[in-house]
């Protein structure tokens, strides 16, 4: 009976407890993103917390699409609340790095135990900002040369903040494992 109840309280194959933890990660991404909406003209700074929570979600919950789940939830909430530039394309800002994190975790099993692999995965996930920026600028009709330069600059800023965030993950995951929490 209890087993059936546990199975029934799953969210798309994900236990409710873990789904709720992923929900907290999604809301905290938005919270930190909004708190950093300071117009300090430092490009890519919001990637720090976005990538930290995406990688934390995938590292803590052994579900193949944990980061994507967080990305979809936070993307939808950001679109509804009008956070960030990009209108209806805002969910892509969260979804693309989330998919990169999930893909990296799928391809490299020991990802969250290694600083080097985490930094690489963080760099790849952050560089998805290039695709997002180029797509938005292309849709508004920007000149192609400027569009690519701007995309590269935005991606460089995102990598600059995304890599340090991903370097925090191995020590955090190791400690959580040591405490027996995950």
């Amino acid at each position: 009976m209890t087993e059936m109840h546990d199975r029934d309280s799953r969210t798309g194959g994900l236990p409710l407890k873990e789904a709720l933890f992923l929900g907290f990660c999604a809301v905290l991404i938005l919270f930190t993103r909004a708190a950093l909406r300071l117009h300090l003209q430092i490009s890519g700074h919001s990637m720090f917390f976005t990538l930290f929570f995406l990688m934390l979600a995938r590292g803590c919950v052994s579900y193949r699409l944990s980061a994507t789940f967080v990305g979809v939830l936070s993307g939808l909430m950001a679109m509804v609340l009008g956070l960030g530039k990009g209108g209806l394309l805002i969910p892509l800002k969260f979804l693309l790095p989330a998919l990169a994190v999930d893909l990296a975790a799928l391809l490299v099993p020991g990802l969250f135990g290694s600083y080097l692999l985490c930094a690489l995965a963080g760099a790849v996930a952050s560089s998805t900002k290039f695709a997002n920026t180029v797509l938005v600028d292309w849709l508004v009709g920007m000149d192609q040369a400027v569009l690519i330069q701007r995309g590269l600059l935005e991606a460089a800023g995102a990598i600059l903040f995304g890599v340090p965030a991903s370097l925090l993950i191995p020590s955090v995951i190791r400690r959580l494992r040591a405490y027996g929490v995950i």
Partner: protein
Amino acid sequence: MRGESGRARRAGLMLAAGAERQTWLGRRLPTGLVAAASVCLSVAAFAARTAPPMVGLSAVELVMALTLCPQRRRLARDGARVLAWQTAVIVGLYALRYGATEWHEGARISWQLFLAFLPGMVLLRSTPAPRLVQALNRVMPYRAAFVLTTSLRFVPLVLREVRAIHEVQLLRGARVLPRDLARPWNWPDLVNCVLVPAIIQSLALAGEISLAARARGFGCGERRTYWPGS
């Protein structure tokens, strides 16, 4: 459920919080309409750049808070606390980056952010969780809607726990004051003394909410039931 702990019981009470406490207007307006108005006001706050639309928006949001929020004094207290902290941080950062003369720009951004969040605060405090889930259920699966609304509802509790952990670690001598964090060699203290305990606490809280929800029959049926229903 026999295994339900005191904290899980409290989580269960929070799940149903506000079920009876609604204003006269709040009971009559459809939740979808209030949610849509809240979204529009948030978007308008981000779009407003000059004083006249911001003043107009402030007036509209004040009326919304007064007519919909049942606990106005509590909302005012929490809002003032958020605004004071946020203004101090933003004005400080603007003063550091652009000089003290630009403080008013920082204050404007802080007020704009507050206007963007106030409708959400009013919506969450004026609408019982079951009605919010019911409204979201029209656009997403009910389990995902439950996760979304529950996460939003419990984030203040998570943040309170983080603040408590921070204060306790300060008493233990951890170097996690803002002035300590200006030195990068103190950052490991932030990770080890605040971040890791906060994640553990969030996982524990998620477990307790899940236990409380299951004890109340969440997931027993194919379709979600609501109380009070409509």
